[in-house]
Every structure is written in structure tokens, then in C-alpha cells.
């Protein structure tokens, strides 16, 4: 694996606190003195957040499809009527 990818791997280990205490401190020091490395770290952190957003969007769409299919299923009508009755 090329160096830039190993750096990404190491940053991932730093962000998940899975480096050794010594390595964690060394990287922390580098982050303080290298603004470009700090920017890389913040961007990588944001990527993980975006992946989570994307996963949640997908699950929300899947659950909405399940909701619609249950509501339209003739065999589930008493289930659905029971739920609707709670809000009357």
C-alpha cells in the first residue's frame, strides 16, 4: 500500500483511539504543528459522518417502503386500523 494510504489508515486508527499511547501522542503533536495534516484529519472525520448520514438516509427509505407496503397490504388492515384508532 502506498504511503498516502498508510497515512489514511493511521489517521483512522488515531480517530478510533486504537493506536498505542505513544503513537497517539506523536500524531497529536504532528497535528498541532502541521496545519495541512490537521485539515486532512478534520476532512476524514467529516467523511465518516457523511457515510453515517448516507446509511441513515438509506435505512429511512427502506423503512418508509416497509411502512407503505404494510399499510397497503389487505391482510394487515386490522393491524393498521388498530394503529390509526389510537390517534382519533
Amino acid at each position, binding site marked *: *500500500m502506498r504511503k*498516502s*494510504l498508510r497515512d*489514511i*489508515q493511521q489517521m*483512522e486508527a488515531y480517530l478510533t483511539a486504537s493506536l498505542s499511547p505513544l503513537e497517539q501522542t506523536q500524531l497529536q503533536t504532528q497535528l498541532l504543528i502541521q496545519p495541512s495534516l490537521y*485539515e*486532512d484529519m*478534520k*476532512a*476524514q*472525520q*467529516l*467523511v*465518516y*459522518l*457523511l*457515510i*453515517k*448520514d*448516507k*446509511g*441513515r*438516509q*438509506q*435505512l*429511512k427509505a*427502506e*423503512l*418508509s417502503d*416497509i*411502512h407503505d407496503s*404494510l399499510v397497503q397490504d389487505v391482510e*394487515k388492515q386490522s*393491524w393498521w386500523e*388498530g*394503529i*390509526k384508532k*389510537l*390517534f382519533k
Partner: protein
Amino acid sequence: MEIKQLSIKDQLSKHREATFRRLYQEVFPSVARLIAAKGGDLDIAKDIFQDAMILYFEKVMAEKVSLTHSPKAYIKGIAKNLWLQHCKKNRPNLSLGGLEDLHFEPDPFDPSPNHRKKLLDYLARAGQKCMDLLQAFYYFKTLMREIAEEFGYRSERSATVQKYKCLEKVRDRVKNSAHAEILA
């Protein structure tokens, strides 16, 4: 083996749709009852239930769910918390009245949910395959062996290298867009 005999983590990772469908039928009525009793409407109940299911899924995949609680008890507990958050968010808070007068510089690496959505749309257009691979690994916790098969890599090792290449590519796009108009 029947799906219900598997651990809840295996049910959710290998048979997500069937498991979601079963849990929807089993748990939504109790969550709806809870929200109705608190004065919420059906749309709010649906939204809170679906968000609770998503959080439950994430906790199961991260192995942060205690086995002593049934899925129903767990999801209902999350839904109760979400309802409290919903009430807090919608309560007017007079002491924060002057907040809109404050000016601050937004951090490009800590964008609002709305800006994150824009960024996500941009990344999807710029490279869907990478985002799908990263999502499979980090969000759905799919095994590297399965990712290699699904995405057509010859080994787990090449799929792992590809994962880091994708992370680098997406990270650089995020960096480049951080000060560009995508976040403006």
C-alpha cells in the same frame, strides 16, 4: 436455520428487510400507543419509530445492545427518548431570543445537517461506487470478504486497499469543496 434463531445482529445484517418488516409489525403499535398517549400525531409516531429503528440498528451493529433487553423494549426506550428530544426542540425558549443577532464564522469541516446533505449529494454524483463501498464497510459492517465479492475485487486484500483509496478520494473531495460553493 430460521431467521429468528439467528442472533439479532445476524438477522439485521443478513436479512435486514425481513427483520425490519417483522419488527415494524411487532413494535410500531406500542410506539404509536406511547406517542398517542403523549399527545403526538400519527406522522410524528411514524417518524420517531423509524428513527428509533435506525438507532437500534446502529447499536446492534456496534454491539452496544445488552442481550437482556428484547428488541421491543429497546426500541420503545429509544422512542421515548426521541419523543422527549422532539418536545424540547419544539418548545419555544424565550431566553435564546437574541441568538439570531450573533454572527459567527461557520467551520467548513463542521457543516450543518443541511450542508452535509448538499455535500452528500455532491459526493454521490462524483463517485457513487466509492461511497457505496465505504457505506457497506463502515455503516453496514459488511465483511471485507463479502465486499470483495459484491464489488468485484479479487481478494479481501485488494478490497481493503480499495477502501483506503476511496477514503482518500472522498476526503480530498471534501477538502476541495470545504471552501468552495458547495458549502456556500
